[in-house]
């Protein structure tokens, strides 16, 4: 299979709170023949705070990254993080509007010279690789574990702008997780907001919102939740204890990045998947892999 090469934007949290996402993503892309070339000396896209302050400032931070990517001669950037995706996707979209690019250039002083695009790694795996091809890489099917896929808000909404999957009932994670052998449960809250970055300002907001997802997942009998967004993961995993305290529940639901489970199914060395970085211990769930329900009970 021909290798596909993209400029890669890891996002700031990839070196911190979502280090397991960046690591497992790199390992999975390597296995699938997706070559990632890191954008040299990339900067923060500004995330939620930048667009909350000003759209031109937000676009300018993204524009510098596109300018840096021009050095690579690669016009398509891919990123694992939906917040980085959304911000920089909006930057490109807004710069098509009359007068906007000029305002951005006043801030960056580096007008872009090529046409760029940005998409999620998930989109590349789903559309360019396809679930059928993913299934061919599976060495250990993850049978015996039931998961709920949680997409979060940003990756494909609104559909007319993001042009990926369905903006009310996305299926990308459902299909990929089924391809690696998981039992995928229908999750009615698959795209309902977890509270995003509001957790730092007020963790009661994220507790209130993400606590519902955890309870519904628990009620459905899920062994784990699977996500594609560092903010969702943080709110569901790191803040799970806060959500439990808020609702008086005692849920212990591991929250994996989809790339971690794909890596497991591909037989990639566990150290490259950084499973030990998850806050809620995934060991009991991992022990179920390959066992039937009766075996797991025994």
């Amino acid at each position, binding site marked *: 299979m021909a290798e596909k090469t993209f400029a890669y934007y890891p996002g*700031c*949290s990839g*070196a*911190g*709170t979502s*280090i397991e996402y960046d690591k497992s993503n790199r390992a999975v892309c390597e296995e699938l023949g997706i070559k990632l070339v890191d954008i040299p*000396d*990339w*900067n*923060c896209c*500004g*995330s*939620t*705070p*930048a*667009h*909350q*302050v*000003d*759209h*031109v*400032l937000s676009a*300018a*931070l993204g524009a*510098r990254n596109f300018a*840096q990517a021009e050095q690579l001669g690669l016009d398509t950037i891919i990123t694992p993080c939906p917040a980085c995706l959304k911000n920089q996707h909006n930057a490109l979209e807004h710069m098509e*509007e009359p007068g906007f690019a000029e305002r951005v250039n*006043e*801030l*960056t*002083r580096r007008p872009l010279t090529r046409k760029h695009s940005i998409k999620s790694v998930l989109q590349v795996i789903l559309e360019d690789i396809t679930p059928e091809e993913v299934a061919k890489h599976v060495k250990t099917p993850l049978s015996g574990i039931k998961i709920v896929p949680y997409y979060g*808000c*940003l990756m494909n*909404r*609104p*559909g*007319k702008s993001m042009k990926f999957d369905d*903006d*009310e009932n996305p299926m990308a994670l459902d299909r990929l997780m089924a391809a690696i052998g998981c039992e995928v449960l229908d999750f009615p809250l698959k795209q*309902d*907001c977890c*509270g*995003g*970055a*509001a*957790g*730092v*300002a*007020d*963790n009661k*907001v994220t507790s*209130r*919102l993400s606590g519902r997802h955890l309870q519904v997942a628990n009620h459905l009998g899920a062994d784990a939740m699977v996500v594609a967004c560092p903010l969702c993961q943080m709110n569901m995993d*790191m*803040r799970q*204890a*806060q959500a439990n305290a808020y609702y008086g529940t005692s849920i212990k639901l591991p929250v994996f990045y989809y790339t971690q489970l794909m890596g497991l199914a591909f037989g990639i060395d566990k150290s490259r998947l950084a499973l*030990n*970085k998850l*806050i809620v211990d995934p060991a009991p769930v991992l022990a179920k892999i390959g066992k039937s329900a009766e075996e797991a009970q025994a």
Partner: protein
Amino acid sequence: MEPIQLGRGDTEFIRKVEEESRQVVKKCYQCGNCTAGCPMSFSYDYTANQLMRLIQLGQRERVLKSRAVWMCVTCETCTTRCPNEIDVARVLDVCRHMARKAGYGGVFNNMRVFADSFLQTVRWNGKSHELGLMALFKMRAMKPFSDLSLAPSMLLKGKLPYLPHRIKGRSEVAGIFKRFSEQQLKELHAQTTDDKKPAGGDK
């Protein structure tokens, strides 16, 4: 809510919101889809559709002084479901920018303090720094104990690097922020000169 006298709204405010958001707020016919799907309504004083109506009526002060403009998390459920294809989230984001410029929101508005603290770490380093952000936020919001229970496990797992990753081009990034701040100041100055002229009422 105080009665609103129709026809006496701030038309300049309506024009500005439409210009900055590139949305036609007149198209909103109050179906309420935005509010039905909004996950943050519980924290709002005005719901999303009420805000749209208030903007149509030129109620600048009511909109910009609302709690809702700060609490929106831009999940874009409203934008996705609007039958008139209004990007409601973008409209609210623009109102938040205007509220910020007008100096509303107060010193202890945690959403505002969070955004400022985050961007400060980007301005310094070129990348955001989670631990630095937490420290700045706690100091500025005077909430030293918030999220403290999360720190031990995150530090132990190496998920909160102590030192920021600083990029080589950080002065270039700082330049973006510097020019932005200068523009804002200039705009503010122009506005205060404008304010000396008699303006339309809000009622």
